[in-house]
């Protein structure tokens, strides 16, 4: 069942096109993450779904109802902001009650609701404090609580964790995930943090310059990026790209990347390859591993730099005139300048056309 339908949505500020013909359908209960670099229009799209920004053309449907011209308060949504946006002169309790009181719910019904949700978020002991007396993490809990008590059809999150420190961010992320699993409410979540996107999303939407690049399950977007931008944007360290040309010989396809010829027999082409086609061959660092001898494709390469991350060793390997990064286990420590045998997991390859930058 479709819960939110965004059709042909455009947003212009003067001559600046912030959103270009966005189409997106969101099923009930999905957790959609909008991901992209700053200025890609992801926040604008969220604000348009909320009704805080008007779209220049197109339509928004929530729960089967056209809400394009409906005020935010009548869209049955709740939103959590990066800045928390708690009402500074009100107590935590009043903050959480505000939305329900605006809707004319009697106080006798509001009180137990607020207390129940406060207990759920472990902020029941803070109810009589002012927002200024709370820590960042507590404030964001209150902001989430304020959204929860309304029991809306859709939750909107606008980079809710970006103001928190790394450790708190990780624990709040887990909590948001748990909340969504227990409530099952449709959610749209905007972030520029790919780790948040990968862990929270049931489907993620990668955006760039006002356009949707790819929509899909996190692992699908991660392993089968549709173009160079998505491939490059996701992953840390980033994907290795090797410039080369396709070679078609006797029904077999391979990519000549200068230092080596990579067989593409197992690669599922989206479009039929042509001989001599200029391509970028992409492979994530975790698919570049020390050889165990069993791989169908291995090379002997010279390490030029090693970075220890604790859990892994990132090994920079010279490959012709280019360099690629391999993610080695922490107990595998090659010596600088001494060639090592490196195995390539070719089932994880991505091949892009060098001109169109699209996956082929």
């Amino acid at each position, binding site marked *: 069942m479709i819960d939110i339908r965004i059709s042909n949505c455009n947003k212009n500020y003067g001559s600046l096109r912030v959103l270009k013909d966005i189409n997106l359908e969101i099923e009930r209960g999905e957790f959609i993450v909008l991901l992209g670099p700053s200025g890609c229009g992801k926040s604008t799209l969220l604000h348009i779904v*909320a009704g805080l920004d008007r779209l220049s053309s197109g339509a928004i449907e929530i729960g089967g109802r056209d809400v394009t011209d409906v005020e935010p*308060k009548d869209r049955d*949504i709740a939103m959590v*902001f*990066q800045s928390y*946006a708690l*009402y*500074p002169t009100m107590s935590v309790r009043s903050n959480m009650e505000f939305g329900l009181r605006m809707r004319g719910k009697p106080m006798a019904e509001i009180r137990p609701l607020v207390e129940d949700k406060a207990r759920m978020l472990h902020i029941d002991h803070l109810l009589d404090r002012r927002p200024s007396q709370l820590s960042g993490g507590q404030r964001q809990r209150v902001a989430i609580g304020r959204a929860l008590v309304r029991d809306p059809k859709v939750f909107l999150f606008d980079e809710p964790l970006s103001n928190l420190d790394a450790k708190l961010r990780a624990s709040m992320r887990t909590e948001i995930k748990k909340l969504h699993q227990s409530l099952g409410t449709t959610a749209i979540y905007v972030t520029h943090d790919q780790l948040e996107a990968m862990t929270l999303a049931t489907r993620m939407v990668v955006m760039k310059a006002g356009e949707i690049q790819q929509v899909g399950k996190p692992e699908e977007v991660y392993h089968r990026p549709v173009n160079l931008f998505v491939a490059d944007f996701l992953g840390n360290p980033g994907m290795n790209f090797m410039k080369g040309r396709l070679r078609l010989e006797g029904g077999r396809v391979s990519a000549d990347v200068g230092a080596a010829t990579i067989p593409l027999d197992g690669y599922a082409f989206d479009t039929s390859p042509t001989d001599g086609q200029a391509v970028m061959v992409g492979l994530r660092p975790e698919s570049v591993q020390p050889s165990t001898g069993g791989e169908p494709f291995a090379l002997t390469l010279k390490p030029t730099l090693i970075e220890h991350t604790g859990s892994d060793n990132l090994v920079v390997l010279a490959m012709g005139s280019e360099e690629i990064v391999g993610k080695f286990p922490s107990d595998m420590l090659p010596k600088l300048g001494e060639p090592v045998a490196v195995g390539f997991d070719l089932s994880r390859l991505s091949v892009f056309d060098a001109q169109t930058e699209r996956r082929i």
Partner: protein
Amino acid sequence: MSTSTDAMPRPARSGWLTPRRAKAILKRVVLYLLLAIVAFFFAGPLYILLSTSFKTMPEIQAGGLMFLPHEPTAQAWVTAWGEACIGITCGGLKGYFGNSMMMAVPAVLISVMIGAINGYALAKWPFPGARFVFAALVAGNFVPFQVVLAPVSVTLRTLGLFGSVEGLILIHVIYGIPITTMLFRNFFLSVPNDLIKAARIDGAGFFWIFFRIVLPLSPSVIVVALILQFTGIWNDFLFAVSFSNPSSAPMTVALNNLVNSNFGVKEYNVHMAATVIAAAPTLILYILLGRYFLRGMTAGAVKG
């Protein structure tokens, strides 16, 4: 004996008056001197006003302007408040004080209220042409009073408000809107937009957000607006003398008539008492709300 003292190294000039210290003290002295002069400049006239108002006429005529009264008496105050002749009536200032209150209090409240709502709309609810409206309002601050005297006079006559307290209220409200709007608009710019958005999603409308969320954040700017407007309206003379008649004249006009009357002996003690009465409300307002005023003027300057 002398040899031993010579052998002892004389301690370096470690006295309390090092050159550095002397310079600091000199700075202090100059600073206090300047402050004293400025304080004298402002407090001196007030002292003379007060001391003269408690003197009798013979004592004033004997000279000694700077001395305290020999036999303090409140008679001049009683006369100024209830008996002095202003124009052809001899009822003192009390009626005019009432006029001023009847004029200033509503005019201040209305102009501050409208300015707050205007400023809120301009800062937080951008509409097409908002910048032009704001620019026009700012320009309104620079229209000299003299320019509008004739048109306002015609307008008030047409409305049937000429010579009434209500007419003065109207013109002061209109003249107050540009400055109060500017004041509030600039303050409200610092209120985070996310607050407004959150409240809109929570279901609050324009006025609910204004009264429940924005205004409670703004006591300091409200006080600034109140003081500025009250001082301006209470002390206004030009509009008051142009658009009032003897029964609706505010304090400033009455005081002028009292002091400048050409009949009989000039009763300086009564004039002084009358002047203090005329200045008292603004003085009291400053004393009561002054600290909020100072806080309001610097608010936003330090808080990031």
